[in-house]
Each structure stands twice: as structure tokens, then as C-alpha cells.
């Protein structure tokens, strides 16, 4: 029985491997039915310090981000909330992030003769414009080029929420501090009133009081211009994390997205992240199944099949010997040998069926159930079951050629 269960469990792993694209698992979907996953980095506390202890860490994460942004398997969606400070701002407390959430506003501070106030801000990438259908009142959205960080200038394009339209005009420059780095924000547009977008944290954010910055990527090796001062490095880290912690919009199943992200992770040599929405027990179990080497599975199945067959034959022989009285009773009561052989085959059929069902129980518990997967698993198991039954039929005939029940009546 144990051998049968182990054997069919391997068959289950094989089917998961072969059938991964069709396995249906629960996902969150939105944006015209696309599945949504979130990448979340694992670089916290000491781990973060170690990772960024050399400039290689910056280049690794930048490379990972670039691969995320350019993957054809999903849309990378970045709408990352960030604290920024705006110089000489007269708009009032309602633009302050803390005030928005019912806390006292952050105090203003002075730097290089400018008084900075905390204001609401987001870094977004191009997908956010496309997927949320944001309307621009005046000006334009960011160009492709403006999403790439330029170390030769401290100018950065900004688009302002509608509430700013009474305070600034298109083409104005504003002084902003982003994670301690001074930028001259060049206003390239204003949003229509009440424009809404989805972010990683909130399903709906109204942009009226926000300053929108492009989610920056680094096309050349970041280590070439990374400042030596650790405080000045904070901006680069934060900018990298903004893109790393993106949402992924895709038609792919959790299992497929895990495979795609594994590929990106391997090629970028960055593994310190999770995929929220594709990291549950079910997906992790499936992923670990798919990570099993297919050749090894085939080999294990072949070996286990041989072991199962040898065990079946030996068990059959022992069973016939043990149950000889039962068969003798059936024989003298009017059963023929075909009936007795069928009786034995039925017993082994039952064991095999239990062997098929048992591996399905944990699978059914951790997954909500996939009909196509179940059909494939049952189909492959059925083929093996037929092979097992044919072999058992041959073996039972051979055993009864050697074990003549009638002779037992003459004891």
C-alpha cells in the first residue's frame, strides 16, 4: 500500500510539472481580468545594510528592476508612495501626508535658505497612466526618457495634482527634496480634478494634492556615480526599492509567475524577494514540485515502478500462500479459478485505487481544485493502473501454475 501511495505521489509531481500552465489557483484579479501580484523585497535591517555595503548591491538591484520593467511576461506597475519636501510651499496643511491621516502635520525645516514642507507624493511608471486612464488637464505625461535617471542634472520632471494648478503654472520649477536629495522639479503637467489611481497600499488614491515623480530606473551601472556619503545613497536605495516593490499585472497563473520571476531572479542574481499573491502554501508546494528535476522524476518513477512491481509480485505470492484456505473454500463451494484470480486482482485494484486517491487528498486540501489537472493526473494514473493490472494478471496466472489449490485438499 505504501509503495502504491509513493508511486502515485511521484506521478502527481510529474503531472504538476507537465501541467503547471493549466493549474488553476486563486489569485486577485483586476484591471480587465488580469492577475495581480506584488513583489516585496526581503532586504530589511541588517540584511539591507549588508546588501548595500558595496556598490555591487545597487547594481544588482538596478539590474533586477530593469529586467522587471522590460519583461514581456507581465506589466510592471509602480505607484510608490514617498515622502518629499517642497520648498517655500504656501498651500497649507491639507497637502501634508500626516495631516491627511489625522496626525499633526510635520514641522517645516530650513535648508540652504529655503523652508521645506512635507507634501504628498508618488513615484509612478508609464503603466500607471495607461491602466488608470488618467486625464491630464494641461501639459503632458512623462516621456520614456524621463523615467531614466540622469546624473548630470538635478532637474526632474513633475506632474502636479489639480489642487496645485492655482499655485503654479506649467513650466515652473519647484525645489523639492526627495529622500534628502535636492531636485529642481520642472512642472510638465497638471492632472484633471479627481483623478484616481491604484497603488500597492490602497485601491484608490485621488491625485489632487499629489506631486507625481517618474519612477526612475538606472540604465548605466549605478556604481559609476553612486556618492560615497551614505546619507546621499539613501535616495538611490529608495528609488530602487520603489521599482522593486512593484505590482505585476499578468494573465499568468501564480505558478507561471513564480517560474518567470525565478528566471529573472537567476539572471539578475537577486533572490531576496517574495511575490505576494503567489507565495501561499499551495503555490510554494507546487513550485517546490516543479523545481524537482524532471529527469530525476522519470528515473524515480521508473525505479519506484520496478520496486512497486517486485513488491506487488512478492506480496501477491505471500497473499496467495496466506489465503490458500480462502481460495480452497471458494473452489469447493463452486468457484472456478477465473473467479479466484479475479478476486485477487480486485484486491490489488483496490490497493492501487487507494494509492491513487491518497496523494490527491493533501493536493485537494491546499488547492481549491483544478479539473484539468485532476483529469491529467487520473489519466496518467489510469494508464499505469492498466499496466499494473496486466502485470498482476500475468503474475497471478504464473503463481497458480505453481500453486495448485486442489493439492491442498489432500493434506
Amino acid at each position: 500500500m505504501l509503495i502504491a501511495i509513493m508511486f502515485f505521489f511521484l506521478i502527481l509531481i510529474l503531472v504538476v510539472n507537465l501541467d503547471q500552465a493549466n493549474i488553476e489557483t486563486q489569485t486577485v484579479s483586476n484591471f480587465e481580468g488580469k492577475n495581480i501580484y506584488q513583489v516585496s523585497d526581503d532586504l530589511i535591517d541588517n540584511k539591507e545594510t549588508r546588501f548595500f555595503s558595496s556598490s555591487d548591491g545597487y547594481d544588482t538591484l538596478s539590474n533586477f528592476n530593469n529586467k522587471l520593467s522590460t519583461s514581456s511576461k507581465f506589466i510592471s506597475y509602480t505607484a510608490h508612495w514617498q515622502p518629499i519636501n517642497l520648498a517655500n510651499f504656501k498651500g497649507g496643511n491639507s497637502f501634508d501626508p500626516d495631516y491627511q491621516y489625522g496626525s499633526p502635520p510635520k514641522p517645516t525645516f530650513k535648508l540652504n535658505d529655503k523652508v521645506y514642507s512635507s507634501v504628498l507624493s508618488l513615484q509612478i511608471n508609464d503603466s500607471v497612466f495607461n491602466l488608470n486612464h488618467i486625464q491630464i488637464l494641461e501639459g503632458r505625461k512623462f516621456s520614456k526618457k524621463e523615467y531614466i535617471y540622469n546624473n548630470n542634472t538635478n532637474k526632474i520632471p513633475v506632474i502636479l495634482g489639480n489642487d496645485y494648478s492655482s499655485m503654479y503654472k506649467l513650466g515652473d520649477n519647484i525645489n523639492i527634496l526627495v529622500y534628502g536629495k535636492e531636485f529642481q522639479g520642472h512642472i510638465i503637467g497638471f492632472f484633471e480634478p479627481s483623478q484616481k489611481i491604484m497603488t500597492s497600499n490602497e485601491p484608490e488614491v485621488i491625485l489632487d494634492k499629489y506631486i507625481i515623480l517618474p519612477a526612475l530606473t538606472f540604465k548605466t551601472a549605478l556604481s559609476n556615480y553612486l556618492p560615497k556619503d551614505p546619507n546621499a545613497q539613501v535616495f538611490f536605495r529608495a528609488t530602487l526599492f520603489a521599482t522593486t516593490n512593484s505590482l505585476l499585472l499578468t494573465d499568468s497563473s501564480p505558478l507561471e509567475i513564480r517560474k518567470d520571476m525565478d528566471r529573472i531572479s537567476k539572471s539578475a542574481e537577486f533572490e531576496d524577494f517574495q511575490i505576494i499573491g503567489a507565495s501561499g502554501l499551495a503555490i510554494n508546494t507546487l513550485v517546490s514540485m516543479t523545481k524537482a528535476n524532471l529527469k530525476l522524476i522519470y528515473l524515480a518513477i521508473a525505479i519506484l515502478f520496478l520496486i512497486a512491481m517486485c513488491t506487488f509480485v512478492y506480496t501477491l505470492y505471500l497473499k496467495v500462500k496466506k489465503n490458500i484456505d480462502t481460495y480452497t473454500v471458494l473452489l469447493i463451494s463452486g468457484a472456478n479459478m477465473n473467479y479466484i484470480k479475479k478476486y485477487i486482482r480486485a484486491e490489488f485494484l483496490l490497493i492501487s485505487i487507494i494509492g491513487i486517491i491518497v496523494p490527491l487528498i493533501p493536493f485537494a486540501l491546499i488547492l481549491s481544485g483544478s479539473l484539468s489537472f485532476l483529469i491529467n493526473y487520473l489519466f496518467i494514473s489510469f494508464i499505469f493502473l492498466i499496466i499494473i493490472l496486466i502485470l498482476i494478471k500475468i503474475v497471478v496466472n504464473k503463481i497458480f501454475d505453481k500453486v495448485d489449490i486442489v493439492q491442498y485438499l489432500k493434506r
Partner: protein
Amino acid sequence: MSKIILKSISKSFKGTVIFNNVNLTGETGKIIAIKGKSGVGKSTLLNIIAGLETSSSGSYRFDDIDMEKKSLNELAKVRGESIGYISQFSPMIPKLTTFENICIPLIFNKKNRNLEESKITKIVELSKLFQVHHLLDKKIKKLSGGEIQRVGIIRSIISEPKLIVADEPTGSLDDETASTILNFFRELKSNGTTIILATHSQMVAAQSDIVYNLTKEGLYLE
């Protein structure tokens, strides 16, 4: 009514002749005893009569059925419908109760496949007669050798066969129980059942209608 005719039956096993030229005519309602030395082939002859194995040559008719022309599978059907078999050691299915073991032949008997009230009554009556009624609900493995032998006898007659083939039916029983069984056999034969039994017992032979002696050369009337 059943009639058994064996003509020139011989049996060889792996090249060795067990017996030759066995002729036997069994009329309806007779008790026929077959005696012979150990190893002479009494059990083999009974197995041939019961359709459990085939002879090497000769002809065997039972109830106008040419048994020699039937395959072992077809013989099993005849056995299920018309022949009861009592073995020397009465094999049982250990997982079943006494009652369930008794009922097994009914599975293979068209007329009795449904376990009717009358059949249950008969099982109870027979088990009372053979003093195993208190064991009907017990697992068979809890019974003694003598009790098992009596259960085997009840099992062989429960489907009311025309012919009972018994291999040393009283071999493991005390005289009193053996006598009960022989009395019961006489009752069965009065109802038209033919009983062919192998025995070493003079007592059993003395109560039989016909007594044969089996040798390698054939079957001889005593």
C-alpha cells in the same frame, strides 16, 4: 435423481500412474465408501468425482452430464449447483464468522443465492444438530478442529446438493459426533442424496451401502 457412472478412469500425476481402470456406478440415494491404503489416490478420485480435477483417461457421467468433456471452469458450475464437498480438514475463511462460512456455497448456487428465511432456519437447525449453533456469530478462527469439521459438513449440505463427496469426514471427530454425522447422512440418502466418501474407518464402512477398495489397479467391491 443423481446417478454417477465412472468407466475406466485413470489418473497420472507428473508421469506417475496413481490409479488405473476405476469403474464405479453410484445409484441415487446410496452411501458409497471408498477404502484404500494411504496415498493410493482416494482423495484424487474424490476430487475427480467432485469436478475439482480431471482424469487422465476414461469417462465420467454425473446426472447425464459428461463430466470429462467439461472444462474445469464448467465443472465448477456443476459443483456449485449439485455437489457438496467435505474435505479432510475443512478449510475456512478465517476473517468470516461461522454463519458466513456456512453461507459461502449459496453464492455459487443459482437457486439459493438469496438468503431466505427458510435457509437461515435450516442453518440454525443444522448447527443445532451438529452442536455449533452457539458459535454461529463467532469468528471461525476461534473454533476447535472438531467444531470446524462439523461446520464444514453443514456448509457442504446447505445448498442441498444431489451428491456429497466427503474425504475422511469423521477423521477428526469423536465416535459420538461421527455417529451423529453418519445418521444424518442416512437421512440425506433417504431424501435421494448420493454420498461418496473416503474412509479408513470400519465403523463408517459398516454403515455404508456399498464399500469399494481402491488400489493402483482399480476399484474393487469389498
